[in-house]
C-alpha cells in the first residue's frame, strides 16, 4: 500500500490556548527514545508516542532528552512541546491510513482459540491464523 510519506511539522502551537479549549491540564513530560520507538514520561507514567503517517519521526526527534509541556486526554497524547498531535481524520465508512495498528499476536491467538472452540472459526482456519499471528 503506497501512502504519501512527506509530512511537514504542524504549525507552532500555544499549549495554554489548546489546554483551555480542551479543558485539559498541561503537564511536563520527558521525551526519550529506545530501539527506534519514542516515549514521553509524565510523572510515573511512560507512554509510547505513536509514530505513523500522520505524525512523523522527524517531528518528535528534536524533543528527545528535553522536558516539554504535554497534554493528554484519556489515553491519547494531544500535544507534545509546541507540536499538536494529529489525529487520523475519521471518515464515514473509510479507514484512514493511521487507523491501522498491529495487535499483539498472543492476544489474537487467544481469541482464535475461543472462536474455534465456539465453532465460529473452522479449526483448519484457526490453525492457519495462529501460525500467522503466533
Amino acid at each position: 500500500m503506497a501512502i504519501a510519506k512527506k509530512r511537514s511539522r504542524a504549525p507552532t502551537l500555544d499549549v495554554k490556548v489548546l489546554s483551555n479549549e480542551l479543558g485539559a491540564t498541561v503537564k511536563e513530560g520527558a521525551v526519550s527514545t529506545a530501539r527506534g520507538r519514542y516515549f514521553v514520561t509524565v510523572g510515573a507514567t511512560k507512554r509510547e508516542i505513536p509514530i505513523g503517517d500522520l505524525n512523523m519521526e522527524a517531528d518528535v526527534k528534536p524533543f528527545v532528552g528535553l522536558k516539554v509541556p504535554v497534554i493528554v486526554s484519556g489515553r491519547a497524547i494531544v500535544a507534545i512541546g509546541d507540536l499538536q498531535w494529529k489525529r487520523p481524520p475519521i471518515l464515514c465508512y473509510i479507514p484512514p491510513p493511521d487507523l491501522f495498528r498491529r495487535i499483539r499476536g498472543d492476544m489474537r491467538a487467544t481469541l482464535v482459540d475461543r472462536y474455534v472452540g465456539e465453532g465460529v472459526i473452522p479449526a483448519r482456519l484457526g490453525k492457519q491464523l495462529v501460525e500467522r499471528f503466533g
Partner: protein
Amino acid sequence: MLPFRSVVLELTEACPHACVHCYNYWREQRARPVTPTTLSRTEIRDLVRRIKQETRLEQVALSGGEPMLRPDLPGIVRDLTDEDLSVVVITSGALLTPTRLRRLPAGTALEMSIFSADEALHDRIAGRKGALRRVIEGATRASRHGCRLAVSVVVNALNAHDVRRALELGIALGAEGFLLNRVNVTRLTLPQAPWLVPNRSQIEEMLAAAESVAAEFDAPIAVSVPIPPCIVDLSPYSHLHFGWCPRGGDNAYYTVSHDGKLRPCNHSSVVLGDIRRESFASLVNGAPARDFWSPLPAGCAACEHPLRDQCRGGCPAASDECYGTRERWDPIVDLTGILTPPSAAAAPRGNRDQGCSPAGTPPG
C-alpha cells in the same frame, strides 16, 4: 490546489448481498457488475489523475456495490498504487476467493463487514445465507496474502448486543483497524426504523463494548458515522476515535458513482455533476456543492454542547435523504426520541415516493 485528500469511487452497483441497513439509494439487486455507463479502468485511471492534479489526494476508497465483482479490480488497484495513492477496497469480504486474491496486489487494504459473531444473525443482516462463513474464509486468505484488514461493524437494533464479539472476531481474523458505524438511515431504510435503529441504551451498549475492546486489546476503533452528543454522552469512551461529518472541509470525501456522477459523499444521492465532462474543482466549488454543506440546522442553534461545532447536527446527507432538507438535524436524533423534533421546513422526501412513516417488519 484543493485540500481534499480522499475520494470514494463506487465501481459497480452490483452486490450479492441485501444488507438490511444498505444506504445506497440506487441499490438494485439485479444490477450487472459492468454496464455500458460504468467507468472503465482507463477512465478511472484518467479521472483519478485529474483529481490528483487538482487536490492533495492521498487515498482512494474503492466501493460499490461489491467492488470484488469487477473483473478488472486488480488492475484498477495497481493503476492507483502506481500513482502513489493509498487504496482501500470496501468489500463485504464474502468474495475473497483464492483466484481473486491472487490477482490483487499484496498489501492492498481491505475493509470488510462483520455484523455479528453469530452466523445466523450476520447472515440475516447481510441478507444472504453463508455470508459470515465466506467472510471468515476470505479474511483468513486475505491475511495470508498480505492484505491489511479493517473490519467495519455496522450496528443496528438487531446486533447492538453483539458488538464485542464482532470486534473480537475481527481481531482474531487479523484486522488492524476497526470502524464502528451505527446505522445511518435513508428514505429506503426509514420505514424499517422501528426495528432497525438502535435506541439510546443500545447505542450506549455498543460504545461500552467497543471501549472495552479498544482498552483491552489496544485496538484502534473509529466511530465513524457521527453520533450527536445530545443522544449519548461520549465522554466516557476515551479509547474510541469519534468522527464527524467534514461538511466540505479538508477531510471531505466526495464520491464518484459508477457512471461518473460526482456526489458530496457516499451517503447522498445529490449529483453535483458529471466528472467525465467537468473538472473536479469546478464541481466542488460550484453552487450546488456549496449549498449542500448548509449552516447549522436551526434546531441546533441553541445547543451549548462543547462538541456542537464538530457535530453540527450529525449527518446532513441523512437529513437530506429522509426529510428533503439539510436544515433539520440528523434523523437519528428523532428516531432515538431524545429531543422533540423541530417543525419540518419541507415535506419528507420519502413521502413523495416510498412513504416516510416508520413501519415494516424485520427480516428473517
